[in-house]
């Protein structure tokens, strides 16, 4: 039987959709899958789905999913699974009731705080930010932060994973480019773990894949999903429809469409291999009607995170979505407010994984100082989620009686033995008297974070030479197979 604390933690602190609402979203998604269907541009997927009774319109590559097939398939996805750190010692259990935080994936630019210039990202930069993310105590696992521009496009996924395993000990959230990419990722994981069996027992990474909204699975993503399921890898499938552009402008319509896309993809994966671990991921967002760009920092984004968390709970699957995302560019009040709004909504609603740490500018730019600030934000959220402990000791009637009217609690044993667990301690937030703060230069949090960053140096132990060689052999071999004209 779960303890009181466990039950309490599993209860979301924030709810939005009633059980009836959730049911309705579920049945409406099933209707979309059956009546409209998904366009799947991968021949194998069409075979698999036809084989299980889906009606396939081959000319349009359109799959109409029977509702029972979807419900039965989704029920096969496990309610919990684990990822393990590089040394296999630390386990991250992904399931309802747990809450974790991670970076975001695949930035296009890196802001260099030293020069104040935003530029492209090279392999050495990816190694550096990976090390930085590894050193953040609140980041539970690492989502591959960038697509290095100096690595070949076709095999970039292999470089991303190779650089990640070399520079972080945390479990990794990465992607793969097609079935070959999946096999190479498995080879890299096998090199790190020592054997294929060891990798199976202790998964090191997941596959992060997207649908192509509205209502499509492209050839590469579907092919990657199928191979990932065959290899028994955990898969995060992430529809990212944009309300008003690639989904209806109404939030409910976007939620239904995202849910339909996700259930369709989960069905495919479970039909390939029943029991494949999946993470119920959604990057539902909206279009900024003033610019035509995507917005991921507003209150709608936070509402979408709550909906993702709630629908995942409806299916009893671990969930993921953007939590620490912001539209702003600077380490300023806007970015802080956007991130706090999103991550609070997400975490209080019970989203298992909130991603986005270290990113500004939607999900385009890494801002290293922001990673330190996000680390602090996460730490606050964690304390908040821990709530208020009510027991004999914490209700403190004895001490209240002992100190009595007009007394002081500071020197009490009760204080000394409880303050560390009860109170939150900032690492970066300022709590100094004004005069001291001013005398120290009157620095805002961005300045203080930048200074910390200057004093920081990478410390992740390298892979052993043998492992390192084996990992890069996989990468080189993949490069060798790519025929490059010109």
């Amino acid at each position, binding site marked *: 039987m779960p303890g009181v604390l466990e039950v309490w933690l599993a209860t979301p602190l924030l709810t939005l959709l009633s059980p009836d609402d959730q049911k309705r979203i579920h049945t409406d998604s099933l209707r979309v899958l059956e009546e409209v269907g998904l366009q799947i541009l991968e021949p194998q997927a069409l075979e698999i789905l036809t084989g299980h009774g889906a009606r396939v319109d081959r000319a349009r590559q359109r799959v109409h999913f029977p509702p029972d097939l979807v419900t039965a398939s989704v029920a096969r996805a496990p309610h919990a699974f684990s990822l393990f750190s590089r040394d296999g010692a630390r386990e991250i259990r992904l399931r309802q009731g747990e809450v974790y935080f991670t970076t975001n994936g695949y930035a296009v630019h890196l802001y260099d705080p030293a020069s104040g210039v935003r530029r492209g990202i090279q392999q050495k930069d990816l190694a550096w930010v990976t090390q930085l993310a590894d050193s953040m105590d609140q980041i539970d696992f690492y989502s591959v932060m960038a*697509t*290095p521009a100096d690595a070949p*496009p076709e095999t970039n996924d292999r470089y991303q994973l190779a650089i990640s395993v070399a520079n972080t000990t945390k479990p990794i959230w990465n992607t793969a480019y097609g079935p070959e990419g999946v096999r190479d990722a498995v080879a890299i994981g096998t090199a790190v773990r020592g054997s294929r069996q060891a990798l199976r027992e202790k998964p090191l990474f997941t596959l992060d894949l997207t649908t192509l909204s509205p209502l499509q699975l*492209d050839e590469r993503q579907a092919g990657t999903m199928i191979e990932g399921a065959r290899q028994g890898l955990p898969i995060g499938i992430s529809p990212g429809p944009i309300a008003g*552009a690639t989904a209806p402008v109404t939030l409910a319509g976007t939620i239904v469409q995202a849910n339909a896309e996700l259930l369709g993809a989960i069905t495919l994966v479970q039909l390939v291999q029943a029991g494949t671990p999946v993470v119920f991921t959604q990057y539902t967002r909206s*279009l900024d009607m003033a*610019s035509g760009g995507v917005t991921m920092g507003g209150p709608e984004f936070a509402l979408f995170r709550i909906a993702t968390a709630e629908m995942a709970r409806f299916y009893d699957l671990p969930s993921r979505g953007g939590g620490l995302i912001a539209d702003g560019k600077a380490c300023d009040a806007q970015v802080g407010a956007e991130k706090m709004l999103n991550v609070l909504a997400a975490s209080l609603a019970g989203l298992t994984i909130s991603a986005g740490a270290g990113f500004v500018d939607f999900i385009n730019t890494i801002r290293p100082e922001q990673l330190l600030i996000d680390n602090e934000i996460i730490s606050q959220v964690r304390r908040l989620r821990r709530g208020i402990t009510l027991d004999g000791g914490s209700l403190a009637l004895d001490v209240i009686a002992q100190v009595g009217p007009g007394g002081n609690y500071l020197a009490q044993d009760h204080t000394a033995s409880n303050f560390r667990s009860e109170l939150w301690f900032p690492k970066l937030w300022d709590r100094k008297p004004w005069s001291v703060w001013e005398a120290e230069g009157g620095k805002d949090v961005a300045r203080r974070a930048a200074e910390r960053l200057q004093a920081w140096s990478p410390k992740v132990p390298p892979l052993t030479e043998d492992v390192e060689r084996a990992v890069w052999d996989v990468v080189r071999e993949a490069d060798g197979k790519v025929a490059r004209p*010109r």
Partner: protein
Amino acid sequence: MHELLKTVYDDVINGDRPAVEAGVRAAMEAGQPVGSILSEALIGAMKEVGERFERQDFYVPEMLVAARAMQAGLTILKPHLVQAGVPAAGKVVIGTVKGDLHDIGKSLVGMMMEGAGFEVIDLGTDVGPEKFGEAVRTHKPQLVGLSALLTTTMQNMKATLEALEDLGVRDQVKVMVGGAPVTDVFAKEIGADGYAPDASRAVTLAKSLL
């Protein structure tokens, strides 16, 4: 502005497509010169729409319904424009480069350019260099617009420019590039003629390149 043109102008701004179609016909029957219907009523209205958009009085959906209404009017006008020898604003071939399936930004640029009176040939996504080359040969545009959203597909912009060279059509067109990873510096490096960070600036750029 003539009363009939003013009606068309207002209907474009309101995005009332049937009214624009009827209005253009009425103006032509009343003997208004096709050149004026185009420049004063249609393009003029879209200029106003663009200004409202800049001021955030108008948002994207309103701009797009206006552009659609304007296009409907233009379709009726087109055969007569050719007869009257009024030059078209310009033709652009646009697409997202090979390996890349992101199409929202590219489509938005296309729609805004249509709104500005350009004829837009949208090749879609995952468009190989040869296909761009072929399209330039068949459609003879003045402009080519390339979109890329991925670090891994940006290089295909360069490959596309090379393909245009190889086919001997590079000097017949101006090439503009855009998308999240693309910068002004990158555009210069690969030898594109221009870069724009968003759709409305893409239109300004296109006009400046002609």
